[in-house]
């Protein structure tokens, strides 16, 4: 996989398959993707150029990788535990409150293992960690526990 910057447009990723076929993907600045295939008689030119939205390319990736997974569930193990992402809304009750105040582990048995924020990820946040609207929390617990936790975190 070779990448070429396209100033003002995005980045182009080129791939040559084992059968010597060329294809490329352009990642546009706005998040859309273009999938290109090339002509046999004129290898510099695109034969087809497919414009995909972010959602469409996610669907395509899902079809290309055989392990089907929903983007909301990180992993479901055989032990009856699930991991889930829960996002706090902008008008969340928890905006600005400490993580300990949710009494998450006491009430639901669910652990908050990480908080994802635009500025970066915070692994294993302490009880005095202050939540903010827009944070995404990664929870691990039983199915029922995670559902209860999502209900608590959904408080406005």
């Amino acid at each position: 996989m070779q990448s070429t910057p396209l100033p003002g447009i995005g980045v182009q990723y080129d791939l040559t398959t084992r059968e010597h076929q060329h294809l490329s993907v352009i990642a546009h600045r706005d998040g859309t993707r273009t999938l290109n295939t090339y002509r046999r008689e004129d290898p510099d030119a695109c034969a087809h150029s497919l414009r995909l939205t972010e959602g469409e390319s996610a669907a395509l990736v899902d079809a290309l990788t055989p392990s089907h997974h929903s983007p909301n569930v990180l992993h479901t193990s055989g032990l009856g535990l699930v991991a889930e992402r829960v996002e706090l809304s902008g008008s969340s009750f928890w905006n600005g409150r400490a993580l300990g105040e949710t009494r998450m582990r006491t009430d639901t048995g669910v652990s908050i293992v990480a908080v994802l924020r635009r500025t970066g990820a915070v692994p294993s946040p302490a009880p005095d960690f202050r939540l903010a609207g827009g944070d995404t929390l990664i929870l691990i617990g039983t199915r029922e526990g995670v559902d209860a936790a999502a209900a608590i975190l959904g408080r406005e």
Partner: protein
Amino acid sequence: MHTATIFIELGAIILTLGLLGRIGSRYGLSPIPLYLLGGLAFGQGGLLPLSASEEFVATGAEIGVVLLLLMLGLEYTAADLVTNLKSQYPAGMVDFAFNALPGAAMALLLGWGPVAAVVLAGVTWISSSGVIAKVLGDLGRLGNRETPVILSILVLEDLAMAVYLPILTALLAGAGLLVGSVTLAVALATAGAVLFVALRYGRLISRFVSHDDPEKLLLVVLGLTLLVAGIAQQLQVSAAVGAFLVGIALSGEAAEGAHTLLSPLRDLFAAVFFVFFGLNTNPASIPPVLLPALALAVTTALTKIATGYWAARRAGIAAKGRWRAGGALVARGEFSIVIAGLAVAAGIEPSLGPLATAYVLLLVVIGPLAARWTEPLAARLTRRGPAPAAEPQPLPEEPGVRV
């Protein structure tokens, strides 16, 4: 009472532009020629002269130039510019020699003097990155192997603007050799310093500007840009270059946010700018310069094709791709008008404005056509030599293949 007339006039202008743009997009036309024609129609000597809103339109046009250049700067990071400069400078030099010199020669031929020659050189030199990027997208050629070559030539031209515009402003100010070279030195030093700061501390500046709230981001970026543009103008560097440098200095999240927020504003004020340019041109002054404009358009269309061909060959692209690269570069547009606008505002050579208008009108329309047809045409012309039986398949490029 006065505001009412201003509103009515502005409303009429902007509404007409919107409708014209809509008609244009139906036929795949860039809106720039339509805006220019709109300006011609509303201006002195046109169909429907307007006067009350003149001052507002003039200021709006200035803001339009600042925003055009700011957005141009936002497209690139300082690192993009430096890597491009390092690897592609021969193509940039060929581009300059092939396309700027014909413009300069034409101005001298018309007896307009050296300053006008520098202006016209800029007009014929700089391709329209806006039109070309759109055409490449429309034709489904963004993934083509010659596309990075085309883009890097555009990047080099844009970078060259940062050096060219201060030189031009110094020349237009009519300063003497000593004062002129001092302002020029100040200008170039500022541009160099900003580029250096952007490379080193771009992340810090972006973090200072960056804000989650779109309203505050918009205000901070716009305020900063206008402030820097104003200061640059005071230093004789040209407001446009100041704005361009602000755009370069911003990167990452801040640049992306500012890009989406400012695009509609840019569209509005850039349209006002094109109208303003048209307003200041009397349609009656165009026919006398039509012939030189046509000659210049044909010459510089061919030299641009040659530039693209040469640059693509240098990058190891096959013949068809070379022709495509050449054809794609033909369009001139917003920046030719920006350059001519500066000269017109400085009151240099009255025929320059009409000539530039006619020239851009021609090439902004021919550009997309050249992008589409240069390669099939070249293929047909060059195939006449060897036996046609060599290639059994029909046309090399069918219009229907893009999706």
